């Protein structure tokens, strides 16, 4: 099964991590920015560090780049300890959030800068610069200065410049933040293509979960200095480890309740919210009466006017709010006890009138394997 292990090297214990962050702590005076964090990143991954502002993701990135030194712990790149190596001696390049283009140099000179520092022969530099200009599609703009370029063009210069030296690892600090939505989406795919084409390992920092989900091979979710979950986008979305993670990515419904036991169909939860017993196939061992939560994504809640023909997991409520975005409709359904659940579905039939409208009495239903049980 070697094929699987090259696509998902983290599952294969024989594969050695390319970047090993071992028990790294970073303190700024009394403030702990990174708390005993350990992480393995593999070659050719497109790894995202995702989290809210202030969670420490940028600090971690800067430690990889060499602009901060860990207070404790080590960082290994391809087996070598780089924790004390200054940034200009690391085979790592970074694309800055502000792009940080040299304002007094042309696009060409910006891209050539790193190569000049390596004292490469002139014609080799010229070739490489041409290659990069083509890669980021800026060949006609070679002689322009940064202040003569648009935001999107500047971003590409920054990308070209950071790839010119063919680094082993490329770090990207919120690279798409300043772009408008369309350009952002376009650039996301371009980044993925470039990464595959050049075979470079990317580590990207972002606060935009959609972006992380789109581009990443794996996501490292961070919160105030530590990693809450490291997994593929699918795993994070469908199998979050706790409510914070579930809530951070996408929308989710929580049903709170107490553990009732388990049977052949799965875990039973005596839910106050739902005022009935609900079921999930996930097997969870817990003490009877212990507080647990069911998490169900809105797209997995079926909504209908007719009572569904199932035994369990049926709730009744009234549509309170509808959010119509063209392709999807999202319904806020108020249950009898006041709790509001969110259900959404694709508008598969073309119809100008709403099939379900405000104040409609509806039934919500989900399949037992659609929900997961969270202990925290």
């Amino acid at each position: 099964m070697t094929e699987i292990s090259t696509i998902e090297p983290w599952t294969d214990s024989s594969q050695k991590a390319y970047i090993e962050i071992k028990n790294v702590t970073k303190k700024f005076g009394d403030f702990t920015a990174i708390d005993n964090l350990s992480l393995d990143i593999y070659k050719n991954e497109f790894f995202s560090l995702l989290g809210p502002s202030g969670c420490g993701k940028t600090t971690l990135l800067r430690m990889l780049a060499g602009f901060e030194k860990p207070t404790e712990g080590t960082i290994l790149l391809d087996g070598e300890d780089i924790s004390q190596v200054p940034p200009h001696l690391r085979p790592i390049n970074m694309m800055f959030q502000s792009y940080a283009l040299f304002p007094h140099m042309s696009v060409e000179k910006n891209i050539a800068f790193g190569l000049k520092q390596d004292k490469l022969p002139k014609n080799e530099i010229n070739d490489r610069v041409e290659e990069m200009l083509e890669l980021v599609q800026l060949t006609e703009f070679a002689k322009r200065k940064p202040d003569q370029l648009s935001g999107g063009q500047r971003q590409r210069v920054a990308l070209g410049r950071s790839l010119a030296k063919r680094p082993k690892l490329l770090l990207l600090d919120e690279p798409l933040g300043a772009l408008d939505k369309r350009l952002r989406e376009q650039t996301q795919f371009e980044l993925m293509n470039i990464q595959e084409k050049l075979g470079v390992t990317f580590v990207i920092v972002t606060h935009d979960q959609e972006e992380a989900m789109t581009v990443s091979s794996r996501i490292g979710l961070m919160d105030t200095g530590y990693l809450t979950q490291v997994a593929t986008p699918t795993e994070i979305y469908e199998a979050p480890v706790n409510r914070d993670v579930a809530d951070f990515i996408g929308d989710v419904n929580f049903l709170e309740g107490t553990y009732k036991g388990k049977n052949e169909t799965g875990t039973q939860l005596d839910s106050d919210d739902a005022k009935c017993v609900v079921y999930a196939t996930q097997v969870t061992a817990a003490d009877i009466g212990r507080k647990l939560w069911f998490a169900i994504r809105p797209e997995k809640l079926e909504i209908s006017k007719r009572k569904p023909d199932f035994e369990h997991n049926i709730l009744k409520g009234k549509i309170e709010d509808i959010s119509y975005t063209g392709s999807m409709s999202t319904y806020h359904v108020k249950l009898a006890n006041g709790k509001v659940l969110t259900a959404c579905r694709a508008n598969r039939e073309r119809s100008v009138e709403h099939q379900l409208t405000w104040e409609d009495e509806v039934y919500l239903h989900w399949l037992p394997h659609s929900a997961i049980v969270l202990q925290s």
Partner: protein
Amino acid sequence: MKRFTAFNMTTLLLGFAFLYIPIIILVVFSFNESKLVTVWGGFSTKWYGELMNNQSIKDAAWVTAKVAFTSSTIATLLGTIAGLVMTKFGRFRGRTLFSGMIYAPMVMPEVIIGLSLLLMFVALSIDRGVMTVTLAHITFSMCYVAVVVQSRMSSYDDSINEAALDLGCTPFKTFFLITLPIILPAVISGWLLSFTLSLDDLVIASFTSGPGSTTLPMKIYSMVRLGVTPEINAVSTILVGLVAIGVVTGSFIGKKQKTN
């Protein structure tokens, strides 16, 4: 909505009149045939001619030029380093004292600075001359340069330096290849500021100069004490003219740089 009222306009006109009328009178009367300031005897450039024959003024001008060029260049060097240290070097031992030594000379009365430097030169048995005046000028000029550079550096984007480091440039090279070219306008205006301060200084030069190193301001001052003559007006007009050309050129270059 910033309404520029008639009151504002009047204020500006009066203000600029106040600032410029004395200078204009000075220039006008340098072309006065008559020796008296209040009587217009006709247009004449004879005082400029006398000026050209006045060796002591020419010597003083030469001393001033030497001192001004040397001191501004060295002051710009030192001041730029100081400005960098103040903004980018964070906390270090003795920072408060350093900062104090940068700001204090800007407000300190010149008599105190002049006196203290002279006393030190005497105590160290250093002969006073062009060198001591230059040393004195460097000392107070560098503070002004430091403040100008500091002000520019506080809005400097550090990530540009980081990008250079990241691409393999050593910190030392980064300063010369990246930082310096970017802050060059501020450094140049620091140089111009030092040059003007040196050109203009009377008090400190009086304390710190020696025989044979009379500066132009010192010469003018001694002439003024003897009485007002149009020759002084002439020398003043030349200086004003030079400075005006310098400032206007400087601001044109500054504007052109901005639009580029």
